[in-house]
């Protein structure tokens, strides 16, 4: 089954998304900041990354640009998860950096997030994104 790396600094939310993902049969690894996330990527080799934007130290945008700069990790699809209502600027920045989708947590329940994961893994596994999906909460 597909492997998901879940990156978020809020342990409560991590637990919540992890539960939903595991219930749906995914193998999940977690990271609570950008540095840990980057280490996890090479060790765990996830099929998809759910990445929080607002994190202390290394934020989601920084993680994303490092992933895309590295040939070994540039193909892994990344869904940005954010708690701030995404401004057009943020969404564009995320998509320009190579995220496949941008989800606002408040507007997307765990079931909707996992739906998105399924959709993207169905079409994108180990491929570069062909379509940029915007889902705004």
């Amino acid at each position, binding site marked *: 089954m597909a492997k998901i790396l879940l990156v978020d600094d809020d342990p*409560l939310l991590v637990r919540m998304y992890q*539960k*939903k993902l595991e*219930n749906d049969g995914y193998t999940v690894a977690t990271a609570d900041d950008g540095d840990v996330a980057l280490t996890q990527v090479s060790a765990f080799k996830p099929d998809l990354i759910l990445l929080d934007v607002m994190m202390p130290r290394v934020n989601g945008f920084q993680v994303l640009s490092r992933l895309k700069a590295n040939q070994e990790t540039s193909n892994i699809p990344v869904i940005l998860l954010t708690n701030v209502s995404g401004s057009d600027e943020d969404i564009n920045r995320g998509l320009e950096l190579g995220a496949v989708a941008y989800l606002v947590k408040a507007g997307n329940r*765990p079931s909707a997030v996992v739906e998105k994961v399924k959709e993207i893994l169905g079409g994108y596994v180990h491929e570069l994104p062909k379509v940029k999906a915007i889902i705004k909460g």
Partner: protein
Amino acid sequence: MDDKVNPQATLAGLAQAVAQSAQEMSRENKELIEKNKALVLFRKIDDIILSKVTDLGQIAQQVVDTIVNELAFRAVVILLLGKKDNSLIRLVISRTDSITQAEVKLNQKLFGEKIPLTEEGNLIVKAVKTQRMQITHGLNNTLTPHFSDEQSKLAAETIGITASFVYPLVVREEVIGAMLVSINDAEGLSEFKNALIDRLAGIIGVAINNALLYQEIQGANVRLKEVDKLKDEFVSIASHELRTPLTAIDGLVSMILDGEYGAVNQDLKQPLEDVNTSSVRLIHLVNDMLNLSRIKAGRMKYTLSEFSIADVITEVVHLLQPISEQKGLQLTAANLDPVTVQGDSDKVKEVLNNLIGNSLKFTDKGSITVSTKADEDKIEVDVTDTGIGIAKEDQQKLFGEFAQLESGKGRPPGTGLGLHISREIVRKIGGDLWIKESDKGTRSTFAFSLPKSQSALAMRVKEEIEKEAQNNPDQKSDTIK
């Protein structure tokens, strides 16, 4: 005796008359010169007071310097009454070489330190307390308690002062300070000059009071803006911080209800759903408050464009169709004019969403219809439902902040800000929002209008919005959802 005229007597009389009239003329001439000087002085003071300078110290300095120059006085000092510490403090003293010399000699500034109102022997204190003009030789009893009599004498001699007059500055029966005028005039002050200074004290009192009030208002304005910004920041932070726990509550409850954590006891379903509804309501409330504070502070950015109102209506109606079907209602758009309007399309969608949403909430059976009506420079959008209706006496209340009516009991409560915000938004972009028809138990029509594109109204609104955007560079466009 015949009535022969005595030529000698006549001549003497004539000479006397000439001398008399010459004296009179000379006096009149003197008075004319003085009056002329006074006019020039008033004119100059007017110019100072009405100039662009609003700084109290600067205005007062210019005024005292002008008086000293125009009337050849030795010194003019203005002191303000500090209500907090009950003392008189120097606002300004005229700038002349002799005053500088005196201050150097005494190694101390004249009137530089506060004079407490308890200093009964001080004539300035007396003038303020009695609200009457005081006269003294030299500078006697004006510099206490910070200068000795000898020092006062030295100061008066150095500056060349023979007499000083202290006038209370009274505005609307309230003393705001005092003005000290010092002269070197063996003959004393002419009646005219006396009246003139009296008048000057009145003018200066008003001018200083105005400048003081202006300063106060400016200070209050700055503080108000700061408070407003703080409030906005607070609401913004509160809203974002509330989001995280609310997302968790909402997400977790939805997962529990979906059975992700195991089967849910039937008895628990309703309370869990209520938890969910409450958390959603809370986040809406915070968002609405944030939006409202943004709108009021002029920090909501409106992005104007021209768009088809029919397209926007069709889109929103389509999005709300599932909710309508769920309640077994008929939601339709009918008779839409193919008109281009000017507005902020995202915000118009929100307004429409809000109106149709309200109709859906308060209608249990029947239909909701959205239609348009065009007139010369506006288009009107009507949302009509077959819902519970609104009693006439309740209709105005509905647009207030946090409005919830008794008749709405038993329905999921909203934030009570929706209609208020919608109306604020529509009014900003040149339209209005109102209840067109409704009464208890009958159908209701809510209407809003928008300017047609390129109409005179549209042009004017565009200009106003551009102006406000310039004044508020930190505007944001999104309403927070």
